């Protein structure tokens, strides 16, 4: 599954929508993020993660890649595929994220274009076994 962002300056109808999907044993939440204030604040995003009750929260708005792993799950901001201007982030590096889900294991591959080179990083997250 790949995640990338479509710019909010384009005439998209309804950015306040949120979506929750279940893939394998993981619940994913997708939300644009401009309504979670302060923007990019991980503690505030945590609240959204609890609210949607998801393991992985995918969010945007800041055009900067961020991945944050905590006991409740993972918060990912895949950044922005075109490296477009952001008032929040200087020197946006174009980036996108591929997420691989296998059973109780989630691996996030981050692709960033930094200084003309593609850099790949990965983040592992294992979900605790559900209490039977």
């Amino acid at each position, binding site marked *: 599954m790949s995640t990338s962002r479509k710019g*909010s*300056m384009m005439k998209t109808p*309804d*950015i*306040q929508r949120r979506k929750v999907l279940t893939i394998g044993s993981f619940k994913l939440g997708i939300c644009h993020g*401009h*309504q979670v*204030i*302060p*923007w990019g604040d991980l*503690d*505030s995003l*945590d*609240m959204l993660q*609890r*609210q949607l*009750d998801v393991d992985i929260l995918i969010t945007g708005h800041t055009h900067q890649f961020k991945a944050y792993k905590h*006991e*409740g799950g993972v918060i990912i901001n895949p950044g922005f595929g075109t490296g*477009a*201007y952001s*008032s*929040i982030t*200087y020197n946006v590096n174009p980036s996108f994220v591929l997420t691989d889900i296998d059973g109780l294991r989630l691996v996030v591959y981050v692709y960033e274009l930094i200084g003309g080179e593609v850099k790949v990083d990965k983040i592992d997250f294992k979900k605790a076994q559900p209490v039977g």
Partner: protein
Amino acid sequence: MVLPRVLEQVVNCKDELAQYYLMDCIIQVFPDEYHLQTLDTLLGACPQLQPTVDVKTILSQLMERLSNYAASTPQVLADFLQVEAFSKLSEAVVKVIEVQPDMPLVGAVSLHVALLTFTLRVHVDRLDYVDQVLGACVKKLEGVGKVKDNKATKQIIALLTAPLEKYNNIVTVLSLTNYPKVMEHLDYGTNKVMAVVIIQNIMKNGTFIMEADKVEALCELLKEIIQDSDGSPALDELDEEDFMEEQNLVARLVQMLTNDDNSEMFKILQTVRKYFLKGGPKRLGYTLPSLVFSALKLVRLLQQQDESSGEDGVTFPQKVFQFLLQTVEALSVVPAPELALRLYLQCAEAANNCDLEPIAYEFFTQAFVLYEEEIADSKAQVTAIHLIIGTLQRMHVFGVENRDTLTHKATGYSAKLLKKPDQCRAVYACSHLFWVVDGRVQDGERVLLCLKRALRIANAAQQMASVTKGSGGTLTLFVEILNKYLYYFEHGNQHITNSVIQGLIELIVTEMQSDNTTQDPMVDSFFASTLRYIRFQKQKGDGVAERYASIEL
């Protein structure tokens, strides 16, 4: 020698089939060097042929042979110049057209296309030759106006495309003074197609146009898609998707108009805007945002280079901000208030980063005015107010008074949103305006007051819902506010005490157990994960556990 006599025979036979065949033979059979030397003679025969003979094909074939000759043997270029091959061929073309007044336009233009092809192959560096060919064609087209014949139009397009594809650099093509004059003879629809071809060529080749006067020339060339003109059909007759694609291309083009020299860059922006503003309400929504972001990039560069000096008291960054203000204002004719609001906020943030308080304040003022006067749709209001709150939260440039005024406005509008849940959420978002952090503030008491206000709204919403719908369903708001309490508790707000948190937890539990409340699994899981979070915090090290100890679950 032989050739003049042969040609005499060819001309005198006056048989069109024979003439064509014989000329063809002569061209193919005799060697290239020979042709170069006998160019006068050979070309002299052409106007004397029967009018029905396809002279242009004959000439084209000759030129093709000569082009190949030049390509395979670069040393002979000197010979070409010495015998003045180009001017002889040019004259021949003119002569042939003159002698056949009934020649259709397509014929005349295709002769020029053939000559241009020759010129681009043999004398690619001689822009003056290329321009001359175009000029000759312009002369021929004088008085014709917009060409209506399809075949002739195709030839004109070929004439315009050839240098574009040869040089793959619009800046080179722009130096051909006759190029725009040729393009003017295309009818409206075809002109736009050609304009799109030009932009695509620029994008494909990654050509940057770096000088303001070249940018101006380019805008002139593309004017049929940048603005309306006399005789162009009304915009609502055009296909909307095509129009959108076309205008998006224009918007993308802005990225190619750039210069590292900041002054030149600003001139470029001003030039582009001059043309874009003539585009009318339908176009501005597509084109202006691109320009705004280009200007914001310039501001960022100026900020990083710290250009603080300026003439007559106005610094360079301030000039760019003035430009930005006027540009976003222009969107009011579209009208596009939501877009304009976003752009004003982007500008406010940029002004904040440049430490320009009055300018940042002005942008916020404009954003609020738009909110008050133009954004009536309740959904749009929710989005807009959150954008305002989010941007305001990030400001560090405001002094106490300005910050207070804007915060007061933001909270006021938040509480006036149509739906109570929206009110509640916007108000608790405003709590961050009293906390801020890097821009300072951190007024714990006002944070709590704000959250309490949100709680009152949540209560009212709860009561309203149980009366109107017979159930709660807004219980989630309480859990959201609880999470906000936890946020500030974590971040050291002394006014958010354990008892405050405890109180809200108990309230939620009571409400959930009440008969009036229908079970909502989403609220249950949200509350559960919140409690889970608290339990987790109780077990953490670094003094976190102690803080959480007194919260009983």
